[in-house]
């Protein structure tokens, strides 16, 4: 939440000038688009006659109806409580999206036929590759952050070289470099371990910077208090500094987790049967690309939402010691 001012302001969507402006805007937009050929035109048949022949009158009538419905909608939502508002707006946006997807004339039986395999093979692989990579990346990040903050020249040099290199190359290139480059050194590496290695190294580099800034955000006095009681470096780090740095670290790290989940699609280029790979290949035979791509997109989204929920739960957990 932003800082809520105590001055009650009038609800924006109940101000006449705002509603009038919106009305004019929406009306103008729909006047410019010819919707007479769509199902909206069919719905309006009793008023405008045959949609195809209604001409300007048809467009005018459709635009007017949509603008009235739209304004009525937002004015009514303006009366609801915050939670209800959020739910309704989410629901409406979702409906609009579904309406958008139905225009592709997707074959639902085809999706239903392929979906189980996409989940058991594709989504499963995506999740386990991401989960292992996230775990390794977190460990790298802690070590990297400590090294970057240390006064040891070797540790600092190695850590800063690492972050610079892996943040500086495109992830796709890292995937290729590891999968095709390591065998040249004599390490034959499978596609899945290669993918995991590339993802962990790349995200470890980003997360190193997140962890470093989180650790640095903790007041020097905490170190001094901890050390003056007699705690060593490890104990101070584990019990005093990291627990306080976590609330700072978690929001950007949650970002990284979500981003990693989707970037794991890049390992499809080396033939890992994860979600993106299946999305591209399953529909190929029958040219039903859109069905598979949209299903995969939805699956990614659902898992991302789960991660968002987990993140907000953890954030709430760490808000405890801040409550007055």
């Amino acid at each position, binding site marked *: 939440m932003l800082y809520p001012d105590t001055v009650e302001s009038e609800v924006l969507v109940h101000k006449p000038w705002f509603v009038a402006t919106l009305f004019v805007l929406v009306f103008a937009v729909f006047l410019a688009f010819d919707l007479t050929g769509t199902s909206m035109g069919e719905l309006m048949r009793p008023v405008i006659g045959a949609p195809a022949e209604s001409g300007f009158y048809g467009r005018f009538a459709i635009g007017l109806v949509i603008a009235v419905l739209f304004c009525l909608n937002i004015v009514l939502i303006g009366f609801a409580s915050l939670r209800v508002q959020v739910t309704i707006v989410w629901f409406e946006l979702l409906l609009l999206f579904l309406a958008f997807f139905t225009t592709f004339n997707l074959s639902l039986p085809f999706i239903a036929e392929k979906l189980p395999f996409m989940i058991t093979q594709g989504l499963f692989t995506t999740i386990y590759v991401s989960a292992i990579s996230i775990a390794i990346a977190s460990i790298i990040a802690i070590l990297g952050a400590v090294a970057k903050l240390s006064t040891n020249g070797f540790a600092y040099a190695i850590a800063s070289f690492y972050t610079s290199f892996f943040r500086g190359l495109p992830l796709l290139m890292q995937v290729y470099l590891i999968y095709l480059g390591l065998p040249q050194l004599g390490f034959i590496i499978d596609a899945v371990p290669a993918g995991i290695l590339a993802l962990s190294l790349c995200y470890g580099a980003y997360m190193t910077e997140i962890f470093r800034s989180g650790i640095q955000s903790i*007041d020097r*006095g*905490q170190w*001094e*208090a*901890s*050390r*003056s*009681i*007699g*705690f*060593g470096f490890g*104990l101070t780090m584990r*019990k*005093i500094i990291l*627990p*306080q740095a976590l609330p700072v670290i978690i929001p950007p790290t949650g970002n990284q987790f979500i981003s990693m989940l989707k970037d794991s699609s890049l390992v499809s280029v080396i033939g890992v049967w994860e979600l993106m790979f299946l999305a591209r290949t399953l529909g190929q035979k029958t040219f039903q690309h859109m069905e598979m791509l949209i299903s995969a997109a939805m699956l990614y989204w659902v898992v991302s939402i789960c991660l968002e929920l987990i993140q907000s739960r953890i954030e709430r957990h760490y808000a*405890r*010691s*801040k*409550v*007055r």
Partner: protein
Amino acid sequence: MSEKIIDVRNVSKWYGAFRVLTDVNLTVEKGERIVICGPSGSGKSTLIRCFNRLEAHQQGDIVVNGITLHDRMRDVAEVRKNVGMVFQHFNLFPHMTVLMNCMVGPMWIKGVPEAEARKTALKFLERVRIPEQANKYPVQLSGGQQQRVAIARSLCMQPAVMLFDEPTSALDPEMVSEVLETMTSLAREGMTMVCVTHEMAFARAVADRVIFMNAGQIIEQGKPDDFFGNPQHERTKLFLSQILKH
């Protein structure tokens, strides 16, 4: 023959080219209460932060509780175990309850079992008169209460000497007295204390010796009556006239 807790011999310290401490000599004996005062930037905080090696000195020797402070981490840890420190900004651990703040030291450093650590913690929270706040988090307490918790946290380690680094200067005027009362009662019970403070009334009432520092040097020291009644050095007179004017 009394026992020396802190023995400082010819200690000098530089920040880069700037000399913050110049040939400081000081001994603190068991049971002694010492107040260090002086204008800001005179090196008094730096000096007591050297006693548990939050700062390193470059020249001379500091012997605390029989252990000479140098770069060996093991010795430094041994010293810190026996030296309690109270900071200007309390520095309580905000993610732990008051009780946990007091328990972690004994538990993790001395390996005291949890039940016993809890008992000790409650005993010292009682002593600083806030046992009822034990299960709150530090942010829920007032500044004075936080500082008293910080004192209890140090006491739980059963230190041989307590260092106070301007313990009241970040507090509201109303809360200064509750902290000073706690410190006074500690002094009455025979705790060895070194306090950096501007509370001259406290110094007069409690201190065995008042030390005045200026520009990194101890320029005058003496019993409170002599120090306040008959200061020798010009700089001391100026300082006292400034600070006692109000």
